[in-house]
């Protein structure tokens, strides 16, 4: 087995061994083969933006090149690269938002088969924020008008985004002052790409200003739209009990995994799998039922809303096939490994790709279309059922490992719960912080990465934060990793948390780690923070709150974009591995120090989870001190 950082998770260990026995290369093996990763790349000082290059700045030889052929220094090169990464990440979320808006619009017009408006109350709230008058209009009418407004916001050239108005006045003023207020989602993406062309923007500070602008158009734009419209369309999540890890697959049922990000597909598959006609068909083929589980973020969308089990996070996608028990893997886009079709060839698993943006040679492509959503979903599931008899018993290795968790917390719900289940208020949370029962709130989010001891980094960080009475919120693959460690259950409070958190969790009955959903739902953290400011007593801006964020095992450009919209919104964000910029000393100084003067937020990079926790706690303590809050109740 590859000698790299070994995931501590038993299910993962078991299936990696199976992969090794079958001589199947997985992400861990590929990571070892890619080691060492190119030092120029790690330091962010290579540029291939134009044909003067590719260029590299030599970090070690004093007489080596210090400028690219065009004259760009390390700071400009790394900043251009960084801006491109932020932009790609934001583009992903913004396009995801567009995809949801499209499904939402078709639903409103009655053109989408099987979808409906599920949360009318939220629809009205969001519509009003977009300036849609709701009096005397039906929900579909409101929804249509709202969808059009959102579509035009994508192409908006001037002015400000609608949902960014949710931010505290202080943040909005800072963004306007520093020229970081985004105008329209598409416009910022296009402008960012234009700026990184050779010889356009040659000032790393200016490039980073645009980076924050495009990131804000994601967090307070595309991502927030995706979250809110998904709630309206697929219902707003409520806490429920769920299961996760590869042990969720069933020996005697048709196992289907949905993988990717956009719930338009996964929700419909989950819905269609309960269709009696389909269930009957499965019985005919000798299966006792149909199990639809999710992988990556789309899993979390359906987990939150339907209690659909989570088979695994990013790193486990290949292992889902290697269980030998998977009839079908249905993918849409983002974080879907190109290696899947090759691995599937070794088993009976069919891989179905569905999104016109994301093609995978070696898969069957069935373009998903909301107009025939339900029918298409059933058609796809039937293929999976047809594949059930092809499963080879001797190839089945479902690990007997799964964990319980309680997901489904939202901005509206989470602290509702703290308020005593009767009223929507953040008072108890703010009071908890003011009194020193809670130190603050930390977000532990992001991907899982084979470079790190997967899962372990997250769990150690979360436990250390809990011990210090820091309430933890999670999204994405980081949440799935912590679920494996039973951290997302109410009992975790008594095992790991400090006395202050224990008291709160005991009173409310919630877990000490709150699962807010997939990575696109990091926008919920922004809105929850706005509610904290609004509730009062802990500062007038997001940057004054005793909060911090971390993405210990970040992988994707989307993580970079998310990190930046938090930094731009005034938060400290810690990445486990440094962003590729250490070769650019001024830029490093900017992102880790100078940017704080602009936004109140900044970056830190620290791979050790204990030290990472220390950085976050110190930051939270500094904010508490600045707010003159009481000393911690239980030190």
């Amino acid at each position: 087995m590859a000698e790299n950082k070994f995931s501590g998770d038993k299910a993962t260990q078991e299936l990696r061994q199976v992969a090794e026995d079958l001589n199947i290369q997985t992400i861990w093996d590929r990571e070892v083969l890619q080691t060492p990763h190119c030092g120029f790349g790690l330091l962010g000082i290579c540029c291939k933006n134009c044909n003067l290059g590719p260029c590299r700045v030599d970090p070690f030889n004093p007489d080596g090149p210090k400028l690219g052929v065009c004259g760009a220094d390390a700071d400009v090169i790394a900043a251009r690269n960084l801006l491109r990464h932020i932009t790609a990440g934001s583009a992903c979320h913004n396009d995801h938002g567009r995809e949801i808006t499209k499904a939402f619009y078709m639903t409103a017009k009655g053109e989408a088969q099987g979808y409906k408006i599920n949360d009318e109350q939220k629809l009205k709230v969001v519509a009003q924020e977009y300036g849609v008058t709701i009096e005397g209009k039906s929900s579909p009418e409101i929804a249509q008008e709202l969808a059009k407004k959102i579509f035009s916001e994508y192409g908006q050239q001037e002015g400000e985004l609608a949902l960014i108005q949710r931010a505290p006045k202080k943040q909005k003023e800072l963004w306007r002052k520093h020229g970081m207020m985004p105008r329209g989602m598409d416009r910022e993406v296009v402008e960012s790409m234009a700026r990184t062309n050779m010889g356009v923007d040659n000032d790393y500070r200016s490039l980073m200003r645009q980076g924050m602008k495009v990131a804000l158009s994601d967090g307070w734009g595309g991502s927030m739209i995706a979250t809110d419209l998904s709630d309206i369309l697929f219902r707003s999540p409520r806490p429920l009990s769920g299961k996760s890890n590869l042990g969720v697959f069933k020996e005697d049922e048709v196992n289907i995994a949905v993988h990717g990000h956009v719930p338009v597909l996964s929700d419909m598959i989950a819905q269609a799998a309960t269709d009696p006609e389909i269930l009957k068909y499965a019985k005919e083929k000798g299966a006792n039922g149909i199990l639809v589980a999710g992988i990556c973020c789309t899993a979390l969308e359906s987990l939150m809303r339907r209690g659909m089990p989570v088979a695994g996070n990013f790193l486990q996608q290949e292992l889902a096939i290697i269980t030998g028990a998977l009839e079908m893997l249905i993918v849409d886009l983002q974080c879907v490994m190109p290696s899947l079709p090759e691995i599937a060839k070794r088993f009976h698993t069919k891989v179905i790709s569905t999104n016109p943006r994301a093609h995978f040679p070696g898969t069957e492509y069935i373009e998903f279309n909301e107009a025939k959503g339900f029918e298409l979903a059933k058609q796809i599931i039937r293929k999976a059922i047809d594949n059930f008899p092809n499963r080879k018993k001797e190839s089945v290795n479902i690990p007997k490992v799964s964990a319980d968790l309680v997901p489904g917390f939202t901005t509206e719900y989470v602290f509702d719960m703290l308020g005593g289940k009767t009223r929507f208020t953040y008072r108890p949370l703010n009071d908890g912080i003011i009194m020193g029962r809670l130190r603050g709130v930390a977000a532990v989010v992001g991907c899982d990465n084979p470079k790190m001891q997967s899962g372990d980094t997250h769990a150690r960080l979360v436990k250390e934060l809990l011990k210090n009475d820091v309430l933890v919120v999670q999204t994405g693959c980081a949440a799935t990793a912590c679920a494996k460690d039973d951290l997302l259950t109410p009992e975790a409070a008594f095992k790991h948390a400090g006395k202050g958190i224990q008291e709160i969790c005991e009173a409310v009955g919630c877990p000490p780690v709150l699962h807010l959903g997939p990575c696109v739902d990091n926008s919920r953290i922004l809105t929850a923070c706005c509610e904290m400011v609004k509730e009062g007593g802990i500062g007038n801006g997001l940057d004054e709150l005793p909060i911090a964020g971390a993405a210990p095992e970040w992988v994707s450009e989307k993580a970079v974009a998310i990190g930046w919209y938090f930094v731009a919104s005034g938060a400290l964000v810690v990445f486990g591995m440094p962003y590729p910029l250490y070769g650019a000393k001024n830029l490093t100084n900017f992102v880790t120090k100078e940017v704080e003067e602009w936004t109140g937020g900044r970056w830190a990079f620290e791979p050790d989870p204990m030290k990472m926790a220390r950085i976050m706690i110190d930051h939270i303590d500094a904010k508490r001190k600045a707010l003159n809050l009481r000393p911690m109740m239980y030190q």
Partner: protein
Amino acid sequence: MKKLYYDPKKCTACKTCEIVCAIGHSPSKDLYTAIVEDNVSLPSVRVYVGQEGNFPLACRHCKDHPCVNACIASALSYDTEKGLLFNKEKCVGCWMCVMACPYGAVRTDKRDNKSVRCDLCADINDPRCAKNCPTKAIVYVEEKK
């Protein structure tokens, strides 16, 4: 003894060898730390553009080692098993070895006025340039007769 051999046809000039060399000979041995160390170590291997492709070159640890003969500070010696041994402490930066090396494989570090040369990564007994070369353009094998 084992020696480093190069295949210019396979070398893509990615300079991984230079980077791992510099990091491996830095106090921290960590990329992100080495980059901010005061005196970032110089790589003792360098990639040149050669006639038949790119061309990595470090000390050959050659048997007749004229640099050892030329060293006026007794900083250099030769061991039939370990190759050329360099006592950096003794080096005074007279550059006699630069003058003597028929391969141009000795570098000068102006910052501490000492020469820089390949030690075959004696600390791990496995040259990092060969170990980490992504295309195996550098290999460390028993001496060719």
